[in-house]
């Protein structure tokens, strides 16, 4: 028996009284707590598998503790080459995604905000947002068929790219490693940048028109307007979006990767999460997959905390 000191006990009674008096409110919050524990937090505890010699019949808790052996195996064993390749790809794909993908919705929002003809803008936004609502299976199905290169048929976009000389004759884009990253990133831009422009558009709309007027009185031109009014005005949004983006850096949309890649494009397209899927779930090396999962989760978390810390230092914008 743990002896609790009277002060602690008083506190418990105090809390108990509050909760009893207001029990309905606490009943309402319980389903959410249970849901999160069962489906989100319990698997986090399951990450222990990374330190275990996992045997399905013994379960995660019952299996033997073997320290960092799984991590060592992952980084130096037979999967090492694939693992580091996936690690590298994850980083490169996110980085390129950031460089090429991040500015597009901002530019779109700037352009949308210029369009004063409401009907035209609404129609164009309707078109531009649509791909966001389609599923990854639909999107990748379209991509794979439009870029298909076969004996009898060639997808219309594959045909177009070959005819303008961007892709050499007789090359299949979806089967060639060099094309995977651009393919993935362009698909992402096509699907999400229209929708992602909403948040920047809202930020631009929130900028007081007085600021623009003032700059105009001083004789500023359009580019100075963007430089000195629009960008500072949307800075907090930009910072938040960058932190979010960096935080998700390692969780590259694995669904799309798994749906798009194939054995020929592992070299450039395999990322940590698709690696975990192949090794941990398809091949059944759960403990090794778990170790890679843990590795992934910790780096991801560090990135968010780090990005948030830096942003708080320089711009006083932060997520929490």
């Amino acid at each position: 028996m743990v002896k609790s000191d009277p002060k602690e006990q008083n506190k418990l009674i105090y809390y108990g009284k509050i909760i009893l008096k207001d029990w309905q409110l606490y009943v309402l919050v319980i389903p959410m707590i249970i849901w999160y524990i069962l489906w989100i937090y319990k698997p986090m505890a399951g990450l222990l598998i990374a330190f275990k010699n996992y045997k399905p019949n013994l379960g995660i808790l019952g299996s033997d503790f073997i320290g960092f052996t799984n991590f060592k195996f992952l980084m130096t064993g037979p999967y090492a080459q694939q693992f580091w390749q996936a690690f590298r790809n994850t980083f490169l794909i996110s980085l390129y995604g950031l460089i090429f993908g991040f500015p597009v919705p901002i530019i779109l929002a700037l352009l949308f905000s210029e369009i004063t003809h409401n009907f035209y803008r609404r129609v164009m936004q309707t078109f531009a947002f649509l791909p966001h609502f389609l599923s990854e299976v639909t999107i990748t199905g379209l991509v794979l068929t439009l870029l298909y290169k076969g004996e009898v048929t060639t997808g219309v976009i594959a045909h177009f790219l070959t005819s303008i000389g961007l892709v050499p004759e007789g090359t299949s884009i979806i089967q060639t490693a060099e094309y995977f990253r651009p393919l993935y990133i362009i698909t992402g831009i096509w699907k999400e940048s229209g929708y992602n422009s909403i948040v920047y558009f809202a930020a631009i709309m929130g900028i007081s028109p007085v600021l623009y007027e003032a700059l105009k009185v001083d004789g500023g031109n359009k580019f100075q307007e963007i430089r000195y009014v629009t960008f500072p005005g949307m800075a907090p949004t930009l910072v938040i979006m960058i932190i979010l983006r960096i935080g998700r850096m390692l969780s590259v949309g694995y669904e799309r990767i798994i749906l798009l890649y194939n054995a020929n494009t592992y070299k450039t397209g395999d990322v940590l999460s698709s690696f975990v899927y192949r090794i941990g779930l398809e091949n059944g090396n759960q403990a090794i997959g778990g170790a890679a999962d843990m590795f992934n989760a910790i780096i991801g978390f560090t990135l968010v905390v780090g990005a948030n810390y830096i942003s708080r230092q320089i711009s006083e914008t932060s997520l929490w």
Partner: protein
Amino acid sequence: MKRLTKSEIIFKILAYILIGLFSIMALYPVVYAFSASISGKIPYEAGKVVLLPKELNFQVYKLIYEDKGFWISYVNSLFYTTYGTAWSMLISITGAYALSKKRLLFRRQLNFFVVFTMWFNAGMVPMYLNYVNMGVANKWGIIVAFGVQAYNIILLRNYFEGVPHEIEEAATIDGATEFQMIRSIYIPMSKAAIATVTLFYATSRWNGYFWARMLLTDPMELNMQVYMRILVENYQKMFDDMPIDLPYAADSYIFAILVCSIIPVLIVYPYIQQYFAKGVNLGGVKG
């Protein structure tokens, strides 16, 4: 009408053109898929179909119409989406309501408990083992164990916080319970937010693929996305092995399936449009 400077006019013209181009590009694959699905075999394979259909042929749609597996998966998807969304909304609304109350004990800790999941997740293997372990590697798992998202809870919480205090106080004096309060004050007063979050949940349920593929092993339980993917995979394999002589281009069949998956989205799209533009601006993501 305010006067525009020269640079402003140039920029405006550029904006109209570029936005037009981008939007057309965004829409093109969808339009093309539809055209290709109803085009004849000969013009399609000759690469003559670029935007509009050639030699109309609706045969592939007849084939899909007669495909039992397709309808089973379609109905399953509807079922999972409806019940799953209701389940997600139930947990999110009650949770967000409690979190919006300043008097809730450990409110800060509970907020963190929810927001933390946006930054750290266990990963595939432990998640999968958990589903198996809990006996939900089936349709119940798809409905119950998914679809509560921290982002949506925070969005609702922020909206609920904006409901005026006076109304709540008046209701308390009248002896309303918390449940009545949610039902007759909070939900009607946050219609836009509720609709937005419902649509977010519904689209992510309807579009969900990865976990459905992992957990749904019974062919009678497959959802639309998984069924569609299996068709795409088999088609490619079949087509690589032996280009058999069909009365329609094999691609047309795939495009037709893709079009069928897009149609439900197009049907609800006008409603989504109406709400989400307001919705996404409701809450920042701040915990």
